């Protein structure tokens, strides 16, 4: 299904995925801003086999006081040492609902009248059909990055507040090879990382409760915490002029642990690709 705008924003930093941009220096009172629009192809949901192609707005802004907005993230660089980056971080977790075939199955909140009643959603279709929607949430936490060399950095972020109960916690750890110059105006960046999540996070996104099971036809699944996924990413930025650029990225993710075993997961390996034109102000 194609949407006019995806509930996601892309970042154009040298980092391969939508991480926070590197701390940098600029004149007092100045900023560096990228705004653009592109197209992204991604799984309909994490673990889903069906793909969505959607328009993707691009936004990245940094101010000289350290505040930044990068895709769905915003934070503040507090470190003054070039080898360290740390500070508070906010991230918008987008909503997940049962868009698609499942939407036609009404009454997910119907009272169950009989223990032998048939499931409200037919098995084998959209596995999110009948599952409760997960509201968008602003997660709060912090980030800490350490530069092993000017080109390599270890990255980490801890965010809390995902899921309807606002108690999902995730820890992302990664390593990034920052912008490699390939010619005067082409830059490549790569990253690899893993995500750890607490039980409540995985329960919110991968668990299936008893009532959810009845409504969705998915078997009951009690998700546990631990390693959630590993991922590899690459980004290519092609600057046409100081103001205009083409930014493209690909990220492969493999769900692991309890998330991998969830009946909601149709395929553990997911690929997200995007390309966008951005203007630098």
């Amino acid at each position, binding site marked *: 299904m*194609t949407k006019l705008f995806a509930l996601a924003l892309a970042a154009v930093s040298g980092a391969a995925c939508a991480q926070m941009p590197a701390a*940098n*220096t*600029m*004149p*007092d*009172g*100045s900023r*560096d801003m990228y705004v653009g*629009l*592109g*197209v992204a192809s991604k799984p309909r949901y994490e673990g889903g086999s069906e793909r969505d*192609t959607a*328009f993707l707005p691009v936004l990245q802004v940094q101010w000289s006081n350290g505040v930044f907005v990068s895709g769905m993230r915003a934070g503040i660089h507090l470190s003054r040492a*070039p*080898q360290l980056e740390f500070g508070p971080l906010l991230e918008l977790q987008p909503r997940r609902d049962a868009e698609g075939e499942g939407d036609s199955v009404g009454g997910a909140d119907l009272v169950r009248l009989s223990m032998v009643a048939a499931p409200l959603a037919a098995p084998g279709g959209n596995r999110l059909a009948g599952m409760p929607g997960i509201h968008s949430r602003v997660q709060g936490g912090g980030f800490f990055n350490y*530069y*092993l*060399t*000017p080109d390599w950095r270890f990255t980490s972020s801890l965010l809390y507040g995902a899921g309807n109960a606002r108690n999902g916690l995730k820890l992302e750890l990664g390593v990034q090879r920052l912008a490699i*110059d390939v*010619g*005067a*105006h082409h830059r490549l960046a790569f990253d690899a990382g893993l995500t750890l999540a607490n039980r409540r996070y995985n329960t919110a996104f991968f668990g299936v409760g008893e009532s959810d099971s009845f409504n969705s036809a998915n078997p009951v699944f009690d998700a546990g915490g631990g390693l959630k996924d590993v991922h590899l990413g690459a980004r290519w930025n092609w*600057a*046409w*002029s*100081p*103001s*205009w650029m*083409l930014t493209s990225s690909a990220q492969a993710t493999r769900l692991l642990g309890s998330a991998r075993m969830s009946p909601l997961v149709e395929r553990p390996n997911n690929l997200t690709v995007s390309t966008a*034109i951005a*203007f*630098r*102000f």
Partner: protein
Amino acid sequence: MPSASHLTTCCSLALIALSACAPARAGDWVSYRDAYRAMVVFEKYGGQKNFLQSQLQVAPQERGTSLDGVQLTLAGKTNQVNLPLDSLGRTAFPLLKGAYDENVALMLSRKIGGFSLRPRVSIALQADGVYEDGELRAACEQALGFARYGDGSLRTRQCGGVRFVFAKRAAEIGVRVHRPDGSDASLAVSTGAAFPGDADDGFPTVLYRFTGSEKVQLVTAYPPLAIVPVFD
């Protein structure tokens, strides 16, 4: 899949962007904002740096690319500056907030093929061509301190010496070591790159290692292009 109208919108965006940047051919411009960010690090560095100088280098990727007569031109609404490059591709870089905010291009006066931009820190030249060993050691330590400021992996490196880099067509190439007892000796000349990572390794260079007395003087009869700290 995206609908035809969506694809049309994307193509239109691409055409608008390409037409907007048409005057800048690939390979002949540099983002002033990117250069500013690279160069301001030295400016804001709070450590000792009185023996050092920082310059922006346009480093060709092809060996043997001539930079004779090449200059960068900053042509903004509020600033018009010509920045001639030396034989090593370096130029003093003006830190101008107006040019940063305008996001202007630095235009190369002619195409030189592929290149990359690098901030380069070297030891400031003396007008009389005489360098005290002790001052060169202090300068090298300052350069190492700045390098460690931006790169923690250099923590274990030590200052080993300095490398004098001369122009390929210099009238006289050489460095004499003048000792306190009055004796003189010339250091060996070899060809090499001015800075680590430079593609052109055909510059006459003289390596001086910090091994003996700090009271030694080094004398250059002809000004070098650069004195580069050597970290071991």
